[in-house]
């Protein structure tokens, strides 16, 4: 093994990152902690034993006994976490590989469906068009889910690409609202966007922040029953940009609020209103904001609506 590879084995942070778990679930970190505890306990046992036991042989036996017990316990603990960590890593890798492989046949389906709908190959009757549109819509749902799964697996592997550049967040939001307006109007939802003062540029990955705005705006519109309003505010707040999006939708029940940013979580309220949805959107949003050195939060009241906010540091 080359010296570089040997040194890499000692890079705990890199070793732990590949599992996608917190430091306290990382087997290498736990092994180090257990090692420190064993050494400390051995020294303490020797010091205490020396003070209260006369026979050095008995002291030695006590120290060996305590060390052996602690060693066995630490081996069991780190082995269990090793299995957990490996299972988690394989799950993440599996999702990544499968999602990537699913992209190809889904793209094929998407383009063939679009081709048929266009009537380029043969004229399409109204009835046929109805069914082709169903195919197209469901294909889009699958693609969205695959994209979300891919983003989540990249976040967990620490491989989410981040290519920062200076952008005007105000312009990005205006662009997103323009694209979402037909959907909002069809859902009987009005979108209002206000800024306060001069909004400076921020240094961020524009593709990732687009995902954030997409998810928050899409949720705000989708979870409004019948008719409603989405209010978006953007302003400078000391050294940060402050973004807020408020809707008068179904809201999140109090008991569900602590889980809202967890993967695959969907509150019962949301499920009643809309059965489709992966439960990954807010997890992705939170991960991106935190990776961008920002903060995110929300408040919500069932059947009254929700307000999500985030801050991002200005350059």
């Amino acid at each position, binding site marked *: 093994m080359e010296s570089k590879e040997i040194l890499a084995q000692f890079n705990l942070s890199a070793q732990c990152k590949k599992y996608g778990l917190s430091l306290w679930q990382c087997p290498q970190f736990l092994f180090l902690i257990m090692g420190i505890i064993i050494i400390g306990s051995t020294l303490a046992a020797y010091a205490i034993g020396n003070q209260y036991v006369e026979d050095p042989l008995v002291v030695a036996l006590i120290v060996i006994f305590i060390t052996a017990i602690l060693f066995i316990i630490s081996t069991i603990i780190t082995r269990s976490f090793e299995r957990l960590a490996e299972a988690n890593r394989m799950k993440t890798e599996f999702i990544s590989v499968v999602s990537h492989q699913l992209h190809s046949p889904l793209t*094929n389906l*998407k383009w063939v469906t679009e081709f048929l709908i266009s009537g380029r190959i043969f004229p399409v009757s109204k009835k046929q068009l109805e069914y082709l549109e169903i195919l197209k819509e469901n294909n889009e749902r699958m693609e969205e889910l695959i994209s979300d799964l891919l983003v989540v697996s990249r976040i967990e592997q620490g491989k989410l690409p981040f290519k920062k550049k200076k952008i005007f967040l105000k312009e990005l939001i205006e662009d997103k609202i323009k694209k979402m307006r037909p959907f909002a109007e069809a859902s009987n939802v009005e979108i209002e966007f206000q800024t306060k003062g001069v909004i400076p540029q921020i240094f961020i990955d524009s593709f990732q922040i687009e995902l954030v705005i997409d998810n928050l705006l899409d949720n705000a519109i989708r979870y409004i029953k019948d008719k409603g309003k989405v209010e978006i505010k953007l302003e400078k707040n000391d050294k940060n940009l402050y973004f807020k999006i408020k809707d008068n939708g179904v809201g999140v029940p109090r008991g569900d609020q602590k889980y809202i940013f967890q993967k695959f979580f969907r509150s019962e309220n949301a499920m009643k209103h809309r059965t489709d949805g992966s439960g990954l959107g807010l997890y992705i949003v939170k991960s991106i904001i935190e990776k961008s050195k920002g903060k995110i939060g929300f408040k919500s009241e069932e059947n009254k609506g929700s307000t999500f906010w985030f801050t991002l540091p200005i350059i």
Partner: protein
Amino acid sequence: MKTILFIEDESALQKTLGEVLKQEGYEVLSALDGEIGLKLADPPAGGKKPDLILLDLILPKINGFEILKKLKDNEETKEIPVIVLTNLEGVGDVDKAIELGAKTYLVKAQYSLEEVLEKIRKTLSE
């Protein structure tokens, strides 16, 4: 009539996009692997060179990145614009393809058929 060389191993995409391009009035050369693609890009004397290459990156025999390099190293093919059409989304992949000479990088899953057509029309009119 402009000629487009389409290097893509998915026969469904060859069929669909190929048919659409023909309907748009382009001549389409199809290659299901990188080796055939390179031969069609630089045909023997008398053969017609393509005006544009649509290139997938994950291909049998020779991958798209290697093809890009060979196209740009060849005096006969280095001026032919290449649109990469792939499902690889990594920033590293995009940067590598552009560095190797790709004119545009399109992630198939993110574009509709019409949007891809529009990019092709725009590139050919430049």
